[in-house]
């Protein structure tokens, strides 16, 4: 009973607690998947039928396997505790110790930026599924600005960043104008534009001056050193986490300020919450739609630019395509973060940690990376359906009123 009371109090703290439960649930179900798909574990359980005492060894095998998998995720994403203690006591080997953390932050950087982009659109009632395409455009624009224009570092980095924003904003402007002036549904337009932009990426990397000279493959020129977002700990350190991290932090701050403190963001939120009231309050719906796509697209473009300028330094035909589609993951992360910038920070870190740690798990235990995706999906599933989570943990705060099919009275 004490546990229930504790959970109840936690739940009363709101969305963060729900997300925490969802994470626990994700790990529990992930464990079941490991059990069901690992031959060693299944075999151990099979023996239980012949000799009941085998249950202890079966349990041990289970815990060993599940534990190894989750330990690998943790070590891969954050680092191993023994390495930390070694570095703290001896002052040696910091680079190796924090390398997993550096990788997690590297992965989280563009993800957080793109998630803020998606979140601002969400809060305006607009479903920008095209963030990925806009990010690709941002990457292309950045690659162009970084490789075809030559400037000193102090100018070159801002220039490529701005070009990245403009590229994404252009990608957002198309569905924005189509929705504002022709009433086209943004989901369809942005979704389809993703395909067009993916092929545009192939065209740019194969058939224009941006293609790497002397290359027949779909790969762009490499950006100048002056346009690269340098690693925070220096190029020689081998740690990839770049100054893009600070850009992401600035974008999160901007997102918070924009939604909660700016007049335009106020208009956006009114429009998202009640378009009728927005109209009556004199808010120009067209202007809001155009602006939200410019801002959301611009930030998505920045995410692509940061990804390109801090890790690959060029774009190729596979840039942000398929499972690397940061703009698609961003939709999930925005949902997970409940469209609050701070929630998005935690959401991107979690997703990054699971992905980066999942790779370590795959390498050291042979359990496929897909397990990380399973855990991520379950977390999102449960965050998006908080009622279900409350039901499973029996966290009824009050008797929830039944939705009534009334018209005229109540809400």
């Amino acid at each position, binding site marked *: 009973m004490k546990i229930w009371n504790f959970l109840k109090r936690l739940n009363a703290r709101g969305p963060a607690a729900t997300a925490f439960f969802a994470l626990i649930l994700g790990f529990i179900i992930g464990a079941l998947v490991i059990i069901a798909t690992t031959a060693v574990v299944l075999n151990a359980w099979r023996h239980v039928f012949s000799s009941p005492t085998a249950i202890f060894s079966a349990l041990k095998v289970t815990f060993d396997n599940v534990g190894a998998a989750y330990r690998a995720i943790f070590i891969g994403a954050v680092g191993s505790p023994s390495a930390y203690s070694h570095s703290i006591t001896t002052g040696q080997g910091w680079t190796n110790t924090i390398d997993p953390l550096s990788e997690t932050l590297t992965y989280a950087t563009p993800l957080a930026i793109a998630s803020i982009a998606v979140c601002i659109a969400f809060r305006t009632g607009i479903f920008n599924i095209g963030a990925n395409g806009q990010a690709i455009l941002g990457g292309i624009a950045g690659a162009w600005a970084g490789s075809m224009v030559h400037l000193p570092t102090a100018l070159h980095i801002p220039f490529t960043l701005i070009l990245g924003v403009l590229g994404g904003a252009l990608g957002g402007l198309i569905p924005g104008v189509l929705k504002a002036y022709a009433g086209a549904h943004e989901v369809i337009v942005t979704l389809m534009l993703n395909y067009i932009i993916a092929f545009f990426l192939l065209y740019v990397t194969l058939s224009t001056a941006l293609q790497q000279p002397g290359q027949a493959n779909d790969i762009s020129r490499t950006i100048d050193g002056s346009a690269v977002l340098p690693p925070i700990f220096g190029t020689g350190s081998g740690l990839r986490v770049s100054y893009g991290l600070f850009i992401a932090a600035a974008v999160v701050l901007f997102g918070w300020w924009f939604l909660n403190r700016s007049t335009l963001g106020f208009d956006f939120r009114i429009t998202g919450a009640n378009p009728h009231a927005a109209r009556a*309050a*004199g808010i120009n719906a067209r202007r809001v739609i155009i602006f939200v796509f410019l801002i959301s697209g611009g930030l998505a473009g920045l995410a692509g630019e940061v990804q390109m300028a801090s890790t690959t330094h060029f774009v190729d035909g596979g840039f942000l395509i398929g499972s690397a589609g940061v703009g698609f993951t961003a939709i999930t992360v925005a949902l997970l973060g409940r469209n609050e910038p701070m929630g998005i920070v935690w959401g991107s870190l979690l997703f990054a940690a699971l992905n980066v740690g999942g790779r370590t798990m795959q390498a050291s235990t042979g359990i496929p990376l897909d397990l990380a995706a399973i855990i991520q999906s379950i977390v999102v599933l449960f965050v998006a359906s908080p009622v279900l989570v409350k039901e499973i943990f029996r966290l009824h705060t009050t008797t929830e009123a039944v939705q009534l099919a009334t018209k005229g*009275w109540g809400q």
Partner: protein
Amino acid sequence: MKKTRVLVTRVFFVTTITGMRVELRGVTKRFGSFTANNQISLTVEPGQIHCLLGENGAGKSTLMNILFGMLHAEEGEIVIDGQAVRFADSGEAVRRGIGMVHQHFMLVPVFTVAENVVLGFEPTKSLGRVNHRAANDMIHELSSRFGLDVDPDALVENLSVGLQQRVEILKALSHDAELLILDEPTAVLTPQEIESLMAIMRSLASAGKSILFITHKLKEVQAVGDVITVIRHGEVVGSVPATTSEADLATLMVGRDVSFSVTKEVVEAGPAVLSLRDVVIRDDRGISVVNGVSLDVNGGQIMAIAGVQGNGQTELVEAIAGLRHVESGTITLGGRDITNKTPRQILDAGLGHVPEDRQRDGLVLSMSIEDNLVLNTAHFRPFAKGWSRNLPAVSSNAADLVERFDVRTTSITADVGSLSGGNQQKVIVARELSRPLTCFMAAQPTRGLDVGSIEYVHRQIVEQRNQGLGVLIVSSELDEVLSLGDRVAVMFSGQVVGVVDPQVGRETIGLMMAGAKPE
């Protein structure tokens, strides 16, 4: 094959039944402290068209949801053929022979008429295949018997609204409905479609079906009804025969008893601040609902528009606020032409607007009281500094207005949706009156409010008029119109029948509301 036969016999069974007597006895329904239905009793005889007449928010829909099993009454009972029943859900109501045609249809657009009608109860052939032939036969049978002409193979999305409604009626009939509830069925129809709906209703009634017809339109009630029950503020105010005159019905609907009075000082009316000239407006269906309205609202004067709902008042208010296109004519506010200007331009020209549907157009329920109090002023000083909102100014504005307008709340950061209807309305009134205004326009300013809030809102309106502001009130409460208005304009079928002094009395105004010109 077997299922088909069952279905056909079911259809034949309908013809042998001789109707059903449905009685509501003392039905009471409360939502929190609000009583939506208070001791409502009415009886629908077999083959009778029983009209339920009342303004929006009078409690008609709540009552019908109770009868259809979607809501449960706190007190009272439903009696069918002398037997008390309790419906756990609408499925049980359907099984007891009650059918409901909702205002918003529940059809699958890409299915055919036949598929929609049999949906969920499909006659099947072997291997679970839908027997389209049997479904079509059934629809032919039903439609020929009740004069409901509709092609069973037509796709629903290709049908006009009127025909879609027939499909809904067919659906109810296919479930052996003996009592059909039609919830504002004419609201979405063109005049021709209304005519044919009425013909259908008559033929259904002559076949022994009972109909509960919900509407707020007097003409329709007289054309088709046998008995008319008028509901106001959740209570039955009268059950009268269909021969009752429109003027009497109108007075019944909008109220007889004086429930409030306002003391007003005499103020000299100033020049016109809001002028309408030959304004013509079409509704969403493209039908012209305001046909050449000319009206002047003077400073220091309350112009009250009276009329039974649905005579163009709603659209007129929307057009003045810039929310609906003006087909022709001009609207000037403080000497500036605001015809078809954007809502922003009209707000800036000095129009205060309290919309009819406050939760839809006036507030963002999920936002705080302080945010709602600057909904249309957030871009101006002192609430904005450059691109940033000045939140301290927003908060102090809210603290001030909540105090001045007596908004009952625990905190200015609480969601406006957590307030009672009366306090929500006070938030809107406070916001609109806190801006510099030329003219203040309020549609149904006290609908659904408790007595205390009504009085408060009225006092505020009169105070503004005393300070020289022009005020335009649209209300379907006759008492409100008579006690507030310095002048009363009566609207009927899209036109101002006349502008009179409220002293002429409620008889005259009742007649005007039914279309009679004042002498």
